[in-house]
Structure formats: C-alpha cells, structure tokens
C-alpha cells in the first residue's frame, strides 16, 4: 500500500563511477532552442561533411542499433578516417562499432553496459588491451540502466529511479545513488539522465527532412534520437515525404531532431540490417583476428586496407564486390546462397 511517509530522502549508498556526459537536460534544451531548426529543410549532405560538422573531439557519442544489428558502420568508418579524438562513448551493447573506434584511437571514456565481447565470437583483443591497461576510462551500467538514462534525457528530467543494479558492484562503479521512495518507502537507485552530444544511427528509410522509418525492432534509436543534441542518420534509402505522410505511424523519429540525412545502401555492413541483409560473418572474424594479434601492426594494416585507404564508403563497397554483398541478402532470407545473380 502507498504511504505518505513524508520522510527525507537520505542518500543511503552511492557509486563512485564518473559521469562522462556532462550535459544536463536543462542545458540541452537551451542549446536546442538556439541551434536546431524546426523548419522543413533538405538535410542531405555527404557523410564526410556530416561527421566533420557534427562530431567533434571530446564529444559524447551514442551509436544506433545493437550488437551487430543495424549499426551505423558508414559513420563509424568516417569517424575513424577523420581521426576524431577523445570521444566518450555509450557502450550500450556495442561490438564492432565501438571496437573500430577504439582501434582507431578515437575513444577516451566508455559508459559500459556491454563492450569487449563479440558475443558468441569471443573477446576483442583491441578492447582488452585498452581497458586492461587503464588507457581508456570506464563507468559501469547495464543495458537497462543506459536505456533508462536515455529515457530521462528524452523526457528532459535530470535523473530517474530504477530497480536494477541494486546491491551489486555494477552499482558501486556507477554514479547511482540509493534512496527510499517517499511514497512507498522502498529502495530505488537514482541514475543521472543521459543527453549525448551526438548520435550516429542507420535506418531503413527517411525523407530529405529527416523523418525516419525503421523496420523491425527499434532497440533504442528512438530514445537516443530524443535525448541527443545532434542526430546523424544514414539510411538504406531516401524516400519521398509523400510516402512518409501516407504512413505517419511509421515515423520513429520526426525531422526536427535530425541534423543530417545520408543515403547509403549497405551502410551497416558488416552488420545485419533486418529484412535487407545478414551479417558478413567472415568479415567480422577477419577483423576480430587482426585485433587479437599481439603485433599491433596487424590491426593497423587492417585499418589501412579497409578504412584509411578509401576516400569514401563507395570504394569500400567496390572492394567488397557486389557478389559478396548480394550473398548477404540470401543469408538474410535464408535462401540458398547464389549471390542472387
């Protein structure tokens, strides 16, 4: 039953984890007023320009998708190519995306919910080196906790109570604070909201204004777009705003949250784009093996071969070859592999 306890809310316990993202919802709100347009304007631009304009050294970066699913690899490659430094990153079940940023030397701090692992494929050599040496700093969370922090950021409130992490070392290495609810007396953990400086995400479709559609599970891209200051959206396909208006319930992110729209088919490779293409398993295995090599030149060479040597993502796709790519479509639809052609 509900009590009206009228008690003070004493802080009973608190974690020592650093809050890497310093933005408060009130500051982000003021910033939004001054820096973001509400007008319907064409937001297309080359990925090179979008990353240059909106991702800065020292930014707190959020990444769309989950694990190997719908990850914005075209933006990841471009950030590495531009040698952006000192990023803090939301490690919210981040696998190859964050790994490549760390291999490229872009990352200073990580909010960890799930990193280091490549799921069934095992641990990352790159991340083990950087986390075990203490070179990259970290704070502990959970997947739920990070999502709740984003919910608070999206709602514009500075903290949110949660019922996870309580009693664990995960909590002690977070910035959470335990208090009692003034309505029921029960213990909850308060977590600070999260408002990233910039989100990179990959979606199925958008119009030129940035009304974004996603097929299948949304994971956390909706929350991240609402919480972040800047939003860069790469899409498999740009569609007309008439198509958007014909099915407005499909719009997961409305245009005024979006700063840049880039049409980039296969933009999630080697990730899995639901209903479009499956993982490039071999590609990820090769990358992972390079990162595990004790000789650091091996991963550097991989980056040379697949990132630095290219002017843009088209050259990367050309190197992969269309036969390989179309095979990933067969995998997605559980078809016999014949490359579709």
């Amino acid at each position, binding site marked *: 039953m509900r009590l009206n306890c009228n008690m003070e809310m004493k802080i009973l316990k608190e974690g020592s984890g650093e809050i890497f993202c310093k933005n408060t919802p009130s500051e982000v709100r003021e910033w939004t007023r001054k820096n973001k347009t509400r007008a319907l304007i064409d937001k297309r631009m080359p990925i090179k320009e979008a990353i240059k304009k909106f991702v800065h050294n020292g930014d707190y970066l959020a990444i769309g998708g989950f694990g190997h699913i719908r990850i914005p690899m075209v933006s990841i490659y471009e950030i590495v190519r531009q040698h952006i430094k000192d990023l803090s990153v939301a*490690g919210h079940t981040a696998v190859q995306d964050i790994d490549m940023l760390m291999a490229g030397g872009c990352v200073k701090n990580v909010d960890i919910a799930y990193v280091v692992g490549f799921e069934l494929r095992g641990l990352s050599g790159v991340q083990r080196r950087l986390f075990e040496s203490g070179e990259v700093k970290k704070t502990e969370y959970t*997947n739920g906790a990070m999502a709740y922090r984003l919910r608070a950021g999206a709602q514009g409130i500075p903290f949110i109570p949660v019922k996870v992490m309580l009693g664990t070392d995960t909590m002690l290495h977070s910035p959470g604070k335990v208090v009692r609810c003034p309505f029921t007396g029960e213990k*909850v953990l308060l977590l600070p909201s999260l408002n990233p400086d910039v989100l990179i995400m990959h979606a199925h479709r958008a119009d030129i204004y940035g009304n974004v559609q996603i097929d299948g599970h949304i994971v956390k891209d909706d929350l991240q777009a609402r919480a972040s200051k800047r939003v860069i959206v790469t899409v498999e396909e740009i569609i007309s705003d008439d198509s958007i208006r014909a099915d407005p319930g499909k719009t997961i992110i409305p245009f005024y949250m979006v700063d840049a729209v880039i049409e980039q088919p296969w933009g999630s490779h080697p990730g899995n784009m639901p209903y479009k293409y499956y993982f490039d398993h071999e590609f990820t295995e090769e990358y992972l093996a390079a990162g595990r090599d004790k000789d650091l030149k091996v991963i550097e060479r991989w980056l040379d071969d697949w990132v630095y040597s290219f002017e843009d993502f088209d050259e990367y796709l050309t190197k992969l070859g269309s036969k390989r790519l179309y095979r990933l479509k067969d995998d997605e639809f559980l078809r016999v592999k014949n490359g579709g052609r």
Partner: protein
Amino acid sequence: MSRNYTLRELMACVAAKQLEDGKAVAVGTGLPLVATMLAQQTHAPNLVIIFEAGGIAPQLPILPISVGDSRTIHKALCTTTLIDIMDTIRRGYVDYAFLGGAQIDSYGNLNSTMIGDDYEKPKVRFPGSGGANDFGSLAWETLIIMDRHSPRRFVKKVDFITTPGYLYGPGAREEEGLSENTGPSRVITDLCLFDFEPESKRMRLIACHPGVTVEDVIKATGFEIIIADNVRTTDPPTEEELRLLHEVIDPLGFVFKK
C-alpha cells in the same frame, strides 16, 4: 565414459527441462537459447520467447548468432524497444531469465565484468552486465548455465558482482531494494544441476550428470555446497533431442561446433 552425446548437448537438454510450458523466458543467444528452443520443440510449445533487443514471440527459423539479429524477430508477434522489454520484465510478465558468467559464488552472484582485484587495471576485462544485471534483478527466476565447472569459476567470492544472486544471504535482495520473490533458481553445469536451499539461499546439489559423482562436484567447486537428501542422476539426451539440436536448432553448428 562412452556416451553418444557431448556435455554441452546434455546441458542443453537438462536446461530445457527447467522451462515450464505457457511461461515467458527472456534469453540471449548461445546455449541458453538452444535450451529454450529445445523446450519449445518438445514439452513447451507454448513457451513465449522474449529478446532484449525487442523481439517478442518470434517463430525462430534457426539459431540466431547475435543477440537481436534478424532471426530473433522472424515472424514475431511484436517488435519493440529494449526499454520496453526491460519494463515488461519488471512488470512481472517474464518468468525466467537465462544467464551465464565467468565466475559464480554460492549465493549465485555472477561476475561477467572482470578478473583481478584492481578495477582500473583488471587481469581480464569481460563485457560487463549487458542485460544480465537487469534480467537477474527483474525476472522471477534466473536460470544459470555455467560450463567448465571448476574451482576457478565456482569461487568463494566473485571478483566483481555484476549480476545479483542472493548477494550475502537470505533477505539481502529485499534489503537492497531488489524486486521481491526473485533470484536464481537453478544452475546447470557440465557436471551437475543445483538449486538453492530455500532457508540459506545457498547452492544445493540436486542432480549429477551420468557418470559424475557427488565427490567430483565437491572437488570442482571452490565453495562448500549443500547436498540434497536425494541426489538424482540427470537424464541423458534422447535420440530425438539430439536430432532436434543438430538438425533443427543449430544446423550450422554455431553452438555445437562441427
């Protein structure tokens, strides 16, 4: 020992039997998902499978490789968000969660964060919680699968409590503010099956796999275990179970390497 099955296959079959029909389970990938799919193919056709990334009740065509990949939403009844799944578990709709880890102690506390005693410079850094702490905090029952049962993994004190078991004993979860009437209920290893003694909330041996003795389990475990009055022997996999595992669930051999 001559047997026509591997220990991983056995673990999958024993784990599958822990799931009751008509209940809901939140699961990742790997062996726990194999066990879940097996349960659905055998005694629990009405088991509802829920994935952290947002897939609800899919018709899994084949084992997903990655948490949340396309298979996890194949002909699903609903695709939603990660936070919606977490909310759903907290609201009481999810009966089981399946977890694993690098270390476990007698209260079922799990470590999937690090090995070592210096948080800043761990000997081995693991992935961290992912959704494990959320699942272990919120789901009604937590089922734990641990292979390579050894004193290095079954330890007196885990180096880091990533995910709560019964923490420091009876009443500890409630004291810390975790949801009531929750916690680990089974630990399935490559040697045996544990539950947790209701009074002490400590791990209790209830069954050994065929060919494994109680003594074997005691030796492989770094903490003192409670031993049930009647320690059963687990059932070996049937031919049909083995066929389902290899032909239907994991034909590409991701979990049961070929």
